[in-house]
């Protein structure tokens, strides 16, 4: 029981990071309709920007995070401008966007390998690492690392900001509407291109924040985006594609599942078992945990 609880706590931070990645995937897919494989690379580049500004400019935690998120926005918007917009203008994005995405992702990944070398790098210590006792079960203390706590708080703040933006601003409402029916939204006089750019900016900011948080925990390398990107996309599907809340739940679930696998079975199996659980859930509920489905009304 004690180990079980402790492993759940240990999985939360990683789960929050997966959620951030997944939301970036799901918003872009829902609104632009492209499976944006460069998202894993935005995550990786966000981690590197965080590394550079903390190591060489000695920026403290929060400014470094913000710079990293800003860089993620710029990169994601550039990816759209260079890669997807020309296809969108010719109306072939749905058919060919995936290939462009894979190509750009590969180019970014190996350019980063060339520029930064493949050697893993670690962030300097930005906050003191210690174990905080959350509560006690019998004689044993359930603890959380200060780093995990910071990541959880950061993730929470970002999610709340996103939620407020989506629910309270007309632009956010238009984004939700765009994910349902872009053509009809055009009839309201909405500037679709601007909305798409905002979507990429948000996606990039979330991806880079995820990369930055990972950098606080582990060493980073140029190919880190491959598996994390895949997992983020899987969480987005697991939660129900297009649903932000679903992505949040999907990410947390995967984080906890991995942590439990690592605690009770073996670290070596954690990736495989995480995916196995997802495949299982999708067999039972193919539209994802929180996928929307309205009956056709006549």
């Amino acid at each position, binding site marked *: 029981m004690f180990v079980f609880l402790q492993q759940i706590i240990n999985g939360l931070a990683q789960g929050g990071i997966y959620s951030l990645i997944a939301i970036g995937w799901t918003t872009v897919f829902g609104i632009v309709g492209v499976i944006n494989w460069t998202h894993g690379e935005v995550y990786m580049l966000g981690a590197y920007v965080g590394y550079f500004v903390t190591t060489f400019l000695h920026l403290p935690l929060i400014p470094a995070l913000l710079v990293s998120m800003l860089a993620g926005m710029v990169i994601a918007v550039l990816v759209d401008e260079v890669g997807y917009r020309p296809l969108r203008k010719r109306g072939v994005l749905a058919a060919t966007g995936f290939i462009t995405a894979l190509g750009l992702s590969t180019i970014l990944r190996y350019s980063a390998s060339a520029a930064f070398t493949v050697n893993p790098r670690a962030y300097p210590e930005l906050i003191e690492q210690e174990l905080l006792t959350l509560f006690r079960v019998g004689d044993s203390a359930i603890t959380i690392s200060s780093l995990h706590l910071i990541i959880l708080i950061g993730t929470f703040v970002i999610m709340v900001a996103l939620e407020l933006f989506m629910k309270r601003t*007309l632009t956010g*409402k*238009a984004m*939700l*509407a765009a994910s*349902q*029916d872009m*053509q*009809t*939204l*055009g*009839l*309201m*006089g*909405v*500037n679709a291109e601007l909305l798409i750019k905002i979507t990429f900016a948000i996606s990039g900011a979330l991806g880079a924040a995820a990369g930055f948080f990972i950098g606080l925990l582990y060493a980073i390398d140029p190919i880190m985006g491959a598996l994390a990107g895949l997992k983020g996309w899987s969480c987005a599907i697991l939660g129900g594609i297009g649903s932000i809340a679903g992505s949040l739940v999907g990410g947390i679930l995967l984080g906890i599942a991995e942590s439990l696998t690592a605690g009770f079975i073996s670290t070596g199996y954690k990736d495989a078992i995480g995916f196995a659980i997802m495949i299982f859930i999708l067999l039972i509920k193919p539209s994802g945990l929180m996928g*929307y489905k*309205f009956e056709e*009304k*006549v």
Partner: protein
Amino acid sequence: MALLEVKGLNVFYGKIHALKDLSLSIEEGEIVSLIGANGAGKTTLLTSLMHQLPYTGSVSFQGKAIDQAGTRDIVKMGMTMVPEGRRVFVRTSVQDNLLLGAYSRKDKEGVKKDLDHIYEMFPRLLERKNQLAGTLSGGEQQMLAMGRALMSSPRLLLLDEPSMGLSPLLVDQIFDTVVNINKTGTTILLVEQNANQALRIAKRGYVIETGEIVLSDSADKLIVNPQVKEAYLGG
């Protein structure tokens, strides 16, 4: 001067010539009905008027050529469309659907006033303003779609088959609503398969067949026209 003047409009889907040299005009304050069978080109016409489809020919609105304008400019100038099949945002609340209709407007006061006005016109929408639009019935969704379009404060409203798939009682209600909207000063181009009712509320009508206007007359005359009777009014 006509509010909307369409001259020699041509639309192609690949090699299919969907609209052929189509011309029509709408005067301020009118209800004009465009009737025709499935696939005649009615929706194509409205969609190209909103510049969501490329066309050749000339269209002017309020005396200004709008061929180079984007959909946004057209909405801002005061023309909008209620699309076929309602197309409300099902995962968005009723109120947010309406607010999105006013996206192109900057006058917050005016938007608020219009929102109140829409709720007055459709009390059902007020009752359900916080519900997701996907939970509304078909008739309520049609009202929402019309309300959403009115939120852009249009001078000309293009209505694409508002009666589609609704029960006879609701169809009557929808046509009453169209008349009411017109009375408040909005000009209406009504596209319908339900020719009988569409012509009854209209001042003038056009009949479209395979992309061409084949008849145009006052609605009273069209409704007794033997050709129209046989083809669209069930003998």
